[in-house]
């Protein structure tokens, strides 16, 4: 076995939330708010629904092949050659998406906190720590996440609560009539692309102690993530109103910056940075692990650890080369990325795989 770790249901739920929330929290509100204005929460509800569907597909598929990851069972579904090809694409996908995440991570720190520091410093440091985490295996970073996960949730709740004096829920009105269905649908793509990262369960499922809990994990973690995104979005709109929010690059940061209570409880934005760094560490580690594990399984190696360093170098180089600037990254994430992700690796492909598996009657050997 390549990966010897096993994680239980509770750990898996926490891991899946931390895997989605930190970047979504920062990047989604602006785009959703810009497109759907005060009705963005409806878009978020739609995207939760989409993510639940995609999560269901991923789990259903995995349950047909217990003990095998996505990279392995595509061969069983599609045959050796085509299967190998698709598995390879998935490995590339995990490298691509992780390069984006690493870039998001660095871009935010440079743009919002340390404009004079070269972005590569942040990216290199987080990659080094992630590489260490990945070498130590799934169980290790899952347990690290058990410390980070409550930290993230508590920070989001506390900062939202502290910002309530600045909020006016009237800014969410009027509901629906002003924007109509089209902008709301458009705005749903981006959060859906984020939350459908839950397809990670197709890689993770062999390492669950309770494999039958797959649906529960997908549903619970999606609902938690969705709820927190809605809290963050509603808080942002109530604080800034629909016109101003679309202008900020990181509304979640500005929502914390406006906290000023009794002339001493202020300047809390460092909490955003803590959540961001800690959450991004786990998120990057999970995707890094998937890419490394996928490559090892694709090459049919006995151990994935020799691949950690090479994959890390590829990740670093890719994340630097992908985009010229945060502006490019932002436009890409808001326009091209969501439809691409949803129709291919984070949705469409899985649906096709499931259909193929059902039609060809392929079911893996039961344990």
């Amino acid at each position, binding site marked *: 076995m390549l990966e010897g770790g096993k994680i239980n249901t509770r750990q898996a739920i926490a891991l899946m939330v931390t895997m989605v929330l930190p970047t979504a929290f920062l990047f989604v509100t602006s785009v959703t708010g810009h497109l759907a204005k005060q009705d963005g929460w409806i878009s978020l509800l739609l995207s939760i629904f989409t993510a639940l569907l995609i999560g269901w597909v991923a789990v259903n598929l995995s349950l047909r092949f217990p003990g095998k990851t996505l990279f392995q069972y595509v061969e069983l579904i599609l045959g050796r050659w085509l299967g190998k090809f698709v598995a390879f694409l998935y490995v590339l996908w995990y490298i691509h998406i992780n390069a984006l995440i690493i870039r998001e991570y660095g871009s935010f720190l440079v743009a*919002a*906190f*340390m*404009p*004079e*520091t*070269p972005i590569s*410093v942040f990216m290199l*440091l987080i990659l080094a720590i992630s590489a260490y985490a990945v070498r130590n295996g799934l169980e290790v970073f899952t347990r690290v996440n058990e410390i980070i996960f409550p930290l993230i949730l508590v920070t989001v709740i506390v900062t939202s609560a502290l910002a309530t004096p*600045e909020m006016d829920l*009237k800014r969410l*009105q*009027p509901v629906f*009539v*002003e924007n109509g269905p089209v902008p709301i649908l458009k705005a749903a793509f981006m959060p859906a692309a984020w939350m459908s990262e839950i397809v990670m369960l197709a890689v993770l499922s062999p390492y669950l102690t309770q494999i039958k809990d797959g649906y529960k994990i997908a549903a619970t973690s999606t609902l938690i993530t969705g709820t927190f995104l809605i809290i963050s979005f509603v808080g942002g709109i109530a*604080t*800034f*109103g629909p*016109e*101003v929010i679309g*202008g900020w690059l990181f509304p979640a940061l*500005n929502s914390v*910056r*406006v906290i*000023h209570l009794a*002339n001493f409880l*202020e*300047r809390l934005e460092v909490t955003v940075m803590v959540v961001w760094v800690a959450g991004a560490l786990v998120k990057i580690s999970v995707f890094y692990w998937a890419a490394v594990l996928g490559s090892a399984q694709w090459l049919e190696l006995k151990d994935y650890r020799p691949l950690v360093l090479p994959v890390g170098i590829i990740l670093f180089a890719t994340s630097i080369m992908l985009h010229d600037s945060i502006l490019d990254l932002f436009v890409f994430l808001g326009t091209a990325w969501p439809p691409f992700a949803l129709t291919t690796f984070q949705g469409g492909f899985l649906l096709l795989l499931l259909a193929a598996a059902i039609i060809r009657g392929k079911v893996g050997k039961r344990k």
Partner: protein
Amino acid sequence: MRNKLACLALLVMIAGVLGGCWSRKEMSELAIVLGAGVDSAPGGQVRLTLQLARTSAFMAGGDGGGGKEPSTWVISDTGETIADVQRKLSAKISRHIYWAHDVILVFGEEAARGGIRKYTNFFSRELQPRETMWVMVARGEAKDILETGSELERTSAQDIGFLARARTGFSVIFKDFIIMLASKGGNPIATMVEIVDRGVISGDIAKDKPTKRKGVALTGTAVFDDDKLVGWLNMTETRGLLWLKGEVLKGVITFPSLTEPGRELSVNIIRGQTEVEPQYDGESVRFYVNIEVEGDLIEQQSVHESVLEEHERNGMEKEMAREIEGKARLALDKAQGEYGLDIFDFGEAFRRKYPREWEKLKDRWNEVFSGAGVEFAVDSHIRRSGLQGRRTSVPE
């Protein structure tokens, strides 16, 4: 051995990182901006004035008035954009200009009349300035406001910040100001600041005379048409504006006694709430303003009436309600009549209730607002009366 060497190499590398970060800024390398002023300068240029904290003066005295050294340094220059002036100023300021502690942002009258949107972007785009700084418009030049001192605080910027925070008039933070700028259902307003006489500082009688002081006071509200300053509300009208906007209310309402002409009563406001309900029948727009207010009686010039008597208290409460409505009408008449501008965000209330109709009316909203009828329903309560129930200074 190899492991030990690797560990050593790692430690050395970590030491390099732990030493600090790129953007490290020590206190002693910062020029902390406490107040910023924006004026227009000849040739379409902008004059930026910074009030900087002289940190050495802050450190000197342990007690409030300890430091004899002046605690601020005010410096200004002109340029094309705010950032351009900042660059020019950095040639005169030996330290790194640091915005994160800026308390107030003052716009000069002329700059505001020319359109304020031209100047606001820097303050939302730059990382350091806060969304929570107070936005004000100076009667005259912003530079003069920043060049004043303070009698009680270290700096005039902090002084003005505290004045704004006390919310005796209308005060607004930068965040809410840019929301007003971006909204179609209302015109922006900001605090008006002016240099006035601020009492005397008593001197040592043997040596010198008491010195007369000039300082900054909040004297009303600046009214904008879209982003251009068009006029002012005085303090009385500002009180009315606060009732109409449903802002946090603090202060005193003074109204005449019903039974004893020429005598006044004062009530300290504890809680106030305003609901604005638009009504539209396809032709005319009406607004119903419901104000609920609670307060404590803190002064009574009249001698025979008492809050303990229910019917007398009801009379006082009615009179108090009439006073509030009068103030609100004053502000309303000025907005509807003199300026023809919706400065109460009534448009936003209308938009929320009639989003479809709003689409048709929004482009001529100020006109619609000016013609709209407004009805008040003020519900006022006197909840407490200090330590006294009735007056005792009257011989029986």
